[in-house]
């Protein structure tokens, strides 16, 4: 894999987003709106279920926000035939996938930096809180897995007319195992429970998830873009 080409592709995505500000702000607004929606939907003054329910809200909102960012760049590049420029160049297709993964990851993290403090204000001020260290680590691992998968899935959906609907549909089944383990992982650190071997096992699962879908993304992406 070509390091220089990879870095240039990541730079392109990041520079375009910084200048265009099309997606990250939308994702940020979305996740905040989702928090508020869940807050009102699930309980009045005290969220029904307490911290455990709040953890569920966080992870679901994380997944939905990741879904929003998926198609970013893909649709535009396909439409303007900008792909021809990339495809005609010697860069290997796996590098394109890897660069897209990293950009998606950066966008997701950028949104979470904003969203997490807001989440704390809305949900975690009362009651017991999970271990923040574990939570942040879990979010990073989950973001990576979703980005790797998302980069591939967005390619599959990008040529369909109803791509904005198709991309989430293709993505969601894969997000379910992630949410199951992530929620279990996070709630497992809410007092009186503390992080322990069960935490490590679940973190290990997230790592396994990332590895599996990174490998699949790496191997399969060229079949998505080669015509």
């Amino acid at each position, binding site marked *: 894999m070509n390091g220089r080409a990879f870095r*240039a592709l990541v730079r*392109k995505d990041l*520079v375009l987003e910084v200048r265009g500000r099309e997606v990250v702000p939308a994702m940020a607004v979305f996740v905040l709106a989702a928090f508020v929606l869940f807050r009102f939907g699930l309980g009045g003054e005290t969220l029904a279920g307490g911290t455990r329910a709040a953890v569920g809200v966080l992870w679901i909102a994380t997944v939905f926000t990741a879904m929003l960012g998926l198609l970013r760049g893909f649709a535009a590049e396909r439409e303007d*035939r900008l792909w*021809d*420029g990339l495809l*005609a*160049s*010697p860069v290997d297709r796996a590098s394109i996938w890897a660069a897209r993964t990293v950009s998606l990851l950066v966008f997701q993290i950028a949104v979470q930096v904003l969203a997490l403090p807001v989440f704390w204000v809305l949900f975690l001020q009362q009651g017991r809180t999970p271990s923040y260290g574990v939570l942040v680590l879990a979010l990073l691992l989950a973001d990576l897995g979703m980005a790797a998968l998302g980069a591939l899935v967005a390619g599959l959906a990008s040529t369909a007319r109803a791509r904005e609907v198709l991309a989430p549909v293709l993505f969601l089944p894969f997000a379910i195992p992630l949410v199951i383990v992530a929620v279990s992982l996070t709630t497992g650190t809410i007092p009186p429970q503390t992080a322990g071997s069960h935490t490590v096992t679940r973190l290990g699962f997230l790592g396994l998830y990332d590895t599996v879908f990174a490998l699949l993304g790496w191997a399969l992406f060229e079949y998505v873009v080669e015509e």
Partner: protein
Amino acid sequence: MSSSEAVACRRLVRRFGERAALDGVDLALAPGETVLLTGPNGAGKTTLLRVLATVLRPSAGDVSVAGHDLPREARRARAAVGYAGHDPLVYPGLRARENLELYAALYGVDPGAVGTALARVGLADRAGDLAGDLSRGMLQRLALARATLHAPGVLLLDEPTAALDAEGRQVLDALLAERGRTTLIATHEPERFADRGWRRVELRAGRVAA
């Protein structure tokens, strides 16, 4: 296939679903030769160029570009081919200079070549402008700079005269006057190049007209 020809197609077929956009194309360009590809709309000119640029894979037949068989050796062929299609293939949100820097990274070209390339197409003073702010003529010049940045041995141009401004025409003429490069130009206006004495190949319904 013989690698003494810079570009060679034998019974090249490219299908889209049931329709064969290219239906058995035989074509050969000798190294350094410039050929005009003419023909009505829908004849397959753009498809042929895209196959030669390795953007599309052939459905059947033999293709070799710069001595490399496609699609097997597509990756090696790409480094030697420059392609300027209908669209300028530049990112409107990136500056002119940044676009070329991206392609320099993709093609493994020394970043210092970017400045020279911009100067050669007369865009040195617009290097810091966003590509989306450039006029159509300037975009076309930028596209030519992008296509020739890596000094390709084979150049594929699809309607290069369309939307070209006066300065662009000079740039194009200078480019085509350079020796040693094999060039295939798909064009609606072959008369524009009448005085060059280049061979003309006409494409009709996916085949080379006799």
